């Protein structure tokens, strides 16, 4: 099996229950150990940061890599993204990559 951690957005989450995925979003409200992530397709994801609390998001846009389970993303790590990140194009890229899964997963 490949060690892929696919880049997805909100609408594809249901296909990846229990899997490790990457999701890009705008950092939203903090709720204890959780953070709301606003995805590129206007979805909202609850990110559980318990395993990675010592590192803080340093930018407004981040890519979170974690395990999607029970409507929560358990963060393993994240990557800071530049402020000029184009959400729309990224969203379209995700849709395209889903049509060409053969080179992505």
């Amino acid at each position, binding site marked *: 099996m490949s060690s892929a*951690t696919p880049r997805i957005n909100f609408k594809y989450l249901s296909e990846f229950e229990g899997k490790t995925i990457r999701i890009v979003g705008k950092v939203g409200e903090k709720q204890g150990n959780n953070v709301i992530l606003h995805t590129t397709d206007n979805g909202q994801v609850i990110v559980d940061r318990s395993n990675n609390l010592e590192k803080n998001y340093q930018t407004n846009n981040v890519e979170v890599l974690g395990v999607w389970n029970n409507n929560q993303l358990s963060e393993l790590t994240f990557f800071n993204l530049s402020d*000029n990140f184009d959400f729309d194009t990224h969203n379209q*890229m995700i849709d395209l990559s889903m049509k060409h899964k053969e080179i992505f997963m």
Partner: protein
Amino acid sequence: MTNNSNENVIVRTITPLTIRQIQLSTESEGNTFKIDKEFVMNVSLVGTVIKVLDGNTYTNYTIDDGTGQLNVRKFKRNKQNNMDDQEEQEGQEEGEKKKSEQIENPFENKYVRIIGNLKEYKNQKSFSVTKITEITDSNQITTHFLEAILVHMQRTKGILKKEQATSQESQIKEEKIEIQKETNNNNNNNNIISQQNTTQILGLALKDKALRLISSNQTSSGISLQELSKELKSTEEEIREIVDFFLDQGQIYITIDDEHFRSTD
């Protein structure tokens, strides 16, 4: 592109790939790999550095681009000066201690763009890094994967369709312009003809009316040019033309002066 058994293939392009594509590629000729049925030598990747192992002759980076993981090697220039391109710029300003720190963790957990050479080495894939740079504009992540998709589609489904469509489109456009030109010409001709027709018809109607008016006038001095002009709502010049015509025909004659007319009937 034909090839013998060894490295006679030279590919001058840089192919944007995903690590998955590299993992899945099995086809090779000589030492050169084929992906999507095309030879690839220079490859670009975008991913995060998850591990750095610093050795004597090379640094090993483990890259994860979301499609898979790959070990890539950046060979060091010489044993004494153990620095990468990017580090050289930064290292010059800092002390020895910091330099060694940078060598250990220059790109760890960061998104990088890697350009390198994909080769077969002892029946295994080997990727030697030509250049590794940190990505500062994250949109490059998106564009890299879009480029990989594009090249993949071009190489598997063909580049021609879009180009064909474009050339067909422009052909159709040219034809349309031609047709329009012809139509315009036709229209213009038709317009001229119809205008002429209308004028002729209107002219005939006016002449009829003029003749009737002249005929109906029983006075000895006849009807004047001004009266005709007024009755027929035309200019005197137009009436003049009409009466000249009838005068030539002999259907009317002038009476007290050349502005008064009577019908010969």
